[in-house]
């Protein structure tokens, strides 16, 4: 019971940390791969503490699709760069003035990294879920 309560809070802390890692990855330690891993560890914690059905109700998406979306993003940025007439997978950045974040640098690399993160998240959770569901 204590564990469940703690997890409810910790889950979001880990999620935030994962996202933070992912975003900061551009200039500080972090990045898509590790962000994805942290995110998936958050979900793994949830599955450990609650049973699978409960979590399924809370997360109404299929992690296989998350992984597929990730691959699509990663490959998609590469193909998109072709359409702009530059070599496959070449990345570009631009400074944006976003309302909340202020001066922010956004690059296609961020999208690419997001793809990596989503793939890692999807695959790890899919594997762990696949095996654990088989146990039952």
């Amino acid at each position, binding site marked *: 019971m204590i564990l469940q309560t703690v997890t409810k809070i910790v889950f979001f802390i880990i999620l935030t940390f994962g996202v933070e*890692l992912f975003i900061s*990855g*551009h*200039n*500080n*330690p*972090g*990045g*898509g*791969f*590790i962000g994805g*891993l*942290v995110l*998936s*560890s958050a979900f*793994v914690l949830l599955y*450990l503490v609650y049973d699978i059905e409960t979590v399924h109700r809370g997360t109404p998406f299929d992690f*296989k699709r998350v*992984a*597929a979306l*990730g*691959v699509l993003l*990663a*490959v998609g940025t*590469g193909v998109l760069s*072709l359409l702009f*007439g*530059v*070599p*496959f*997978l*070449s*990345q570009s*950045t631009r400074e944006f003035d976003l309302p909340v974040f202020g001066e922010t*640098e956004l*690059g296609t*690399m961020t999208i*690419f*990294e997001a*793809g*990596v993160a989503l*793939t*890692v998240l*999807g*695959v*790890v959770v*899919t*594997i*762990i879920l*696949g*095996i*654990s*569901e*088989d*146990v039952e």
Partner: protein
Amino acid sequence: MITVLLAIFIPFIAACLVPFVHKFLTGRKIGWFVIIVPLLLFILLLRLVPSLSHGATYTYSLPWIPSADVYFLTYLDGLSMIFALLITGIGSLVVFYSIFYLSEREAIGRFYTYLLLFMGAMLGVVLSDNLIVLYVFWELTSISSFLLIAFWFHRKQSRYGAKKSMLITVTGGIFMLAGFLMLYTMTGTFSLRELIGMRDIIAADSLFIPAMLLVLLGAFTKSAQFPFHIWLPDAMEAPTPVSAYLHSATMVKAGIYLVARFTPVFAGHAVWFYIVSCVGLLTMLWGSVNAVKQTDLKALLAFSTVSQLGMIMSLLGVGSLAFASSESSHVALFTAATFAALFHLVNHSTFKGSLFMVVGILDHQLGTRNIRRLGGLATIMPITFTIALIGSFSMAGLPPFNGFLSKELFFEAMLSLKNANLLTMDSLALLFPIVAWVGSVFTFIYCMVIVFQSFLGKVPEPFPGQRPAHEAPIQMLVAPIVLGSLVLLIFFFPNILGTYILGPAMLAVYPHLGNMEGLVPEIHVWHGWKAPVFMTLGVIIAGTLLYRYLRYWKGVYRLGVLQWTLDRFYNGTLLRMERVATRVTRGYMTGSVRDYVAYIMLIFIAFIGIGLAGFQQFVFDFSNDAPIEMNEGVIVFVMMCSSVAVLFARSRITAIILNGVLGYSIAILFVVFRAPDLALTQIIVETVTTVLFLLCFYFLPEWRAEHRAVSMRWRNGLIAAASGVIVTVVALLVQGHSLYPTISIYYETASRIAGGLNVVNTILGDFRAFDTMLEVLVLFIAGLGVFSLVKLRRKKGVDRPEEK
């Protein structure tokens, strides 16, 4: 020219959209969305025809992977144009036809996705200038053809045919790739146009013949040339629109395209001429002889396609002699052969396409394609009969249909061989026309079989099909009528086609001749009492007689039937390969993880060991090393202790925990050495792995003391020690040597180039993004693999779904 690039990409984009659009345009209505693609492209391409006929070409370059010399260079010239027009033109008609052919119950969305995939791939083949890009599209056509043949995958025959076609064409494609790579080593370029310019360099190279043979192998497997033709009859398991499109009009002509395209590179050499023309003629004869004995109309058409492809191929072989001749009159004779090849290519697509559609109509209306069960349909289905008549007579080479014109040109080309001074071939010069004539006689016979045995004669009892037969709905007749009218139109106005479409293509095959003058012979319907006319008359007389008395000599087919031995050879080889593969795999897949780790380590030791053995200077340089701090020493000591302790653990959980200690110590070590990225990754990987381990606990057997033989233990111990030594040696050696200049300076500019301060990430996401992307893909595939292995294990006693 962006149009050309779009021509390749639009079908692919549309293929991606089909599943989504299918939600709104349910059932067969999705066909109306699909048909826009080929129709639009056909019109776009048609607009370029006038400028092409003045000798213009269009290129559009897009750097794809410039570091590997792979440019996405599209190149549209006359030769590409013929094929592109066929792909989009016939494609539009086939899509239109298929809308009414397929029933609502079929997986229509899937069908059109595959079809568009094929269309894009095929356009890619004919519009690419870079050989590697061409190869990728080439194999993509094989794959989409595989998917389309296996469209009704619940049928065993479909799966067999799909696998067969895939194995043969893809194997040929890989040989072709080897040929391309040889060409690259000779010239240093993958560009087709540059290759043509380096004709002399290639001809002088010792790899000339191997490269030529390999490229030809790719072309012959794709175009179903003897003895690789065996896949085409089995490919007829595909839905009829697919057979009409892929397996008669477009994909099987990719080999023809390749041979025509490479004519300016390889032609002029005797080997090229002999192989292309002899294989072509043999295929023509073989296909036509075999077609006569078929009782399934589609199988008959398949063999006739084999035969016609052989005829086109042999014409290209004769056309290649123009490169070896010096006299201008002879050159004109041989270029006329290539012209005939291209002309017949178009003609064949028109009449064969319409015939396939006719057979599809019969199948659709009556439920059978067996000629023994058909007959007397001429009065019931007059329009279908007329189209079949036009198509068959054109194929037989009768006037007033376009096949007559190209057949006459074919005979003329074969007769022109007596002028070839390249080779001493007096006997061959006689043999070629004779083989061509015999093949044409058989062609005539099977054409008559199509018309007379299915449409004339008595209506068989009991009549096939449940309902009383009637004419097909008009929508299904539109496409074959269009093709049938083209057959007639081309006969009456052949020179329009010749000047505007075939002329530029001739220039692409014979770039050294400079301009189109003299390359485009005037086509006459009647050119006097000359040899070709007599040959045609002979074909008609002999063919009619033989057809008339077909049942008396049909027994001949029961004698030597090489067809079945070839098929048996294919099946036998496949079976033997499977057996050997099973035995080999059983031999080393013991099911014990310990063995697998031993394999991995052994290979590691072998490769690195060999590498080290060749390495001369073993210098261990410790001078630059930082002094070892106390705390570092402690961590390393903990690591050593825990790893040794794993060996003596009594329970599995102890071993896992000790392993975890090792992992986390490494993470701490990373922290000490100020590598936060690595430390973070290590910690999280360690955590997730431990969870995974715990999950797998359930499935693992009891942790028992090893009862392995002592020699086994020694073996494993030796492998472990050797790999440890090698890792240590390599690590120490790396410190003491700098074989290459350091690359870290390059990454100092990373923030400027890639806009990021985290060097690791800029490497992952930008400099080496290609690797990362592939890794992501691999990870995804591995995840799906684990999922399907765990989830979709076949329960015993349950049938596999595809066999239901």
